[in-house]
C-alpha cells in the first residue's frame, strides 16, 4: 500500500513545531504560551511517531506516551504558577514578569 514518505512526516512535524514556537514568541497571555508549548512538544511527538513508523518500532510510540506525560506535568506546574501569578498581579499578561533585568 501507499506509505507517506518519512520526509513529509518530518516536515509536517517541523511546521507544527514552528507554529508552536511562534506562538510562544507572540502570545502575551501566559495560558496561550503554555498551549503553544504543548503544540511544540506534540510536534516532536509526531516526529517520533513518524520515525517509529519508518523503522516499524514500538519505541517511538513509547516515546510519544512519555512526551504526553511530560507535557501534562509541565502544564500542571505551569498552571499552578499561573494561578499564583493571577493572585499577585490580577493579570496573566506575561510582560508583568520583568522585574529582574541587567
Amino acid at each position, binding site marked *: 500500500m501507499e506509505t507517506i514518505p518519512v520526509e513529509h512526516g518530518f516536515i509536517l512535524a517541523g511546521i507544527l513545531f514552528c507554529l508552536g514556537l511562534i506562538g*510562544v514568541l507572540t502570545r502575551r497571555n501566559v495560558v496561550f504560551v503554555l498551549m503553544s508549548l504543548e503544540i511544540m512538544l506534540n510536534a516532536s511527538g509526531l516526529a517520533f511517531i513518524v520515525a517509529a513508523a519508518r523503522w516499524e518500532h514500538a519505541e517511538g510510540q513509547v516515546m510519544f506516551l512519555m512526551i504526553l506525560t511530560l507535557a501534562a506535568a509541565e502544564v500542571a506546574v505551569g498552571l499552578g504558577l499561573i494561578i499564583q501569578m493571577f493572585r499577585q498581579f490580577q493579570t496573566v499578561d506575561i510582560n508583568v514578569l520583568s522585574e529582574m*533585568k541587567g
Partner: protein
Amino acid sequence: MLELIWLLPTFPLLGFLALVLTGGRLPKRIAGPIGAGSIGLSFAVAALVASEFLNSGLEHFTYEAWVWMSVGGFNPGFTFYLDGLSMVMMLIITGVGFLIHLYATGYMSDDPSFARFFSYMNLFVSAMLMLVLGDNLVLLYLGWEGVGLCSYLLIGFWYTNPANGYAARKAFVVTRVGDTSMAIGLFLLFAQLGTLNIQEMLHAAEMQWSLGSGFAVAASLLLLGGAVGKSAQLPLQTWLPDAMAGPTPISALIHAATMVTAGVYLIARTHPLFEMAPSVQLLVALIGLITLLLSGFTAMTQSDIKRILAYSTVSQIGYMFLGLGVGAWSAAIFHLMTHAFFKALLFLASGTVILSLHHEQNIFKMGGLRNALPVSFFSFLIGSLALTAFPYTSGYFSKDEILLGALELEGVGFWFWLGGVVGAFFTGIYTFRLFFIVFFGDSQAEHPPEKEVGGWHMNGPLILLMILALAGGFIHVPLDAVFNHGEAHDEHNVSGLIHGIMIAVPLLGIAVSYLFFMSKTFSVDMLMAGALAKRLHAFWFGGWGFDTLYNAVLVSPFLFLARVNRKDIVDSFYALIVSVSQAANALIVKSQTGSLRWYALTVAGGLVVMVSLGAVL
C-alpha cells in the same frame, strides 16, 4: 717606599670619611686640620714617592692594590701606575691642592657647613688622584666621574640659591655628555683590543691598527669627547663660567688647577692613540685654537671677576689643547703645571678681594684696591704677568714651548702659531683690564673694603703660589720618558724675530689695556658707540650664544617632550582596553531586558542561526 703610593688617595678618603661619618658636626678647629692635613700628608707622601721614583731611575712603576673585577678577560684592578706624567700630576694635585685647602680653612672659616665643605674637597682630591694614578681606563673613569660628582656638590655648595643648583646640574650634565662619549670609547677599545689597561691597550693598538685606521679615529674621537667635556673646550665649554657659583677655593682647585685639566691629561696619557689618528690630533689643535680665541674675546667683555678668570682658564686650556694637537706633549703638560700655579694664585687672590668686599664680584664695583689689599695686589700682579706670559715668568716658558711646537708643524703650523699669538694679545688685554680696573682708579665699592682679610693661612698660600708662578718656569718636568719619541724643539732653532714677536705681543696687549683702562686715553664707550658693536658685545658677553643655542636645540625640546608625555602615552593604550570592555559590557547588559518574550526570541533566533550555520558548514 714606592709602595706607599696607595696612601696618596687614601689619606684624603679617610679625611672625607672622618668628616662625613661625624655628620659635619665636628668643630672647625678639628675639621680644618683634618681637611687640610689629610692633603698635606698625601703631599708629603707624594714628595717622598716622587723623589724615590726619580732616584730609582725606573721608567715606570705599578702597584696593584686589588683586582677590581675579573669577568671573562675583562679584569681592571685598583692598580696605580706611576711615571713622569702621573708624577707631575700628583704633585700638582697634592701640592697646589694643599695650599688651596690651607687657604680655604681661612676663607670658609665663617661658613656654617665648614666640615661639609672640606669633606667634599677631600673626596675630590682622592678621586683626582685616582684619575691620574689609575693604570687602566676604568679606574681612570672612576676618578673622572668622582671629580665630576665633587664638582657638582661644590658648585651647588650654597644650595639655598636655586641658581647655584642650576649651575651645578649644568656642570654635571654637560660633562656627563662628554663622559658618555668617553665610556663608549672605552667599550670600543675593549671590544677591539680586549683590554682597558692603558699601556697594554696602547701597545695592542699599535700592533693591530694601522696609522689613521677607522678604529683609531673613532676611539680617539670618543676619548676627545670626554676630554672636551671635562676641560670645557668647544663645544662643551658652556658649563665652566657658570661653575663659578661655587666658593672661590673650589674655582681655584677644581675649575682652574686640577679637574678641568683632566682632559689634557687624558689625551696626553693616550697620546699614541691620537698619533695614530692624525686627523683627530689636528682636530684637537683646532678645537684648542678656536676655544682660546673665542673665550679670549668673551673674557674681554665680562664684568664678573670670577667669570673673567673662568674664561681665561678656558682659553689657557685651549693653549694646552693646541699644544697636544701639534704634538708638543710635554709643553702642554708643562703649561698645565704653570697654569695651575698662576691661575690658582689669581683665583685665590680674587677670593680675598671678593671676601673683603663682602662677596662683591662685579669689577666695576671695585677699584683702587691696591693700597687696601697689598697681598692680593701683588698676587694679582704676578699672576697676571705669568698669565700674559711676561718674559721669564712661568707662563712665558710654557706658552712659548707650545707656540714653538705649533711652528714645528709644517703646513698649518704657522697659522696655529699665529692664532696662538693673537690669543696671547687678547690675554694681555683682558688680564690687565681686570687688573687695572680692580686695583687702580678710585673705589666704586658701596662699602669700603675691610683691611687684608684672613690670616697667615690665607696669605701664606698666596705667597708660596707667587713664588711658584714666578719661578715655576724653571722646573724641569721629567716627561721625556713618557713622550720619548723625538720632542722636536729641545733647542729651538727659530729666528729671533719669532721670539721677538712672541715677547712683544703680550706686552702690546698690556699696553692697549693700559691705554683703555688705566690712562683712559681711549674709552670703551667710544668703541661701544655703534649698534653693531653693542650687538657684538652682547654676543661675546653671552659666550658666543652657545647657551642660547643648546637651550633651543636640546633643552627646550626635551622639556617639551617631558611635559606633553607626563601621563605616559603607553598607559593610555591600556586605559583604552579598559574603556572598550566597559563599553562592551554596557552594550551587552542592555540585552538582559528581563522580558520573557525577548528571551524566547533570542533563544529561537539563536537556534535558527545555529542550525543554519551547522547545516552550512
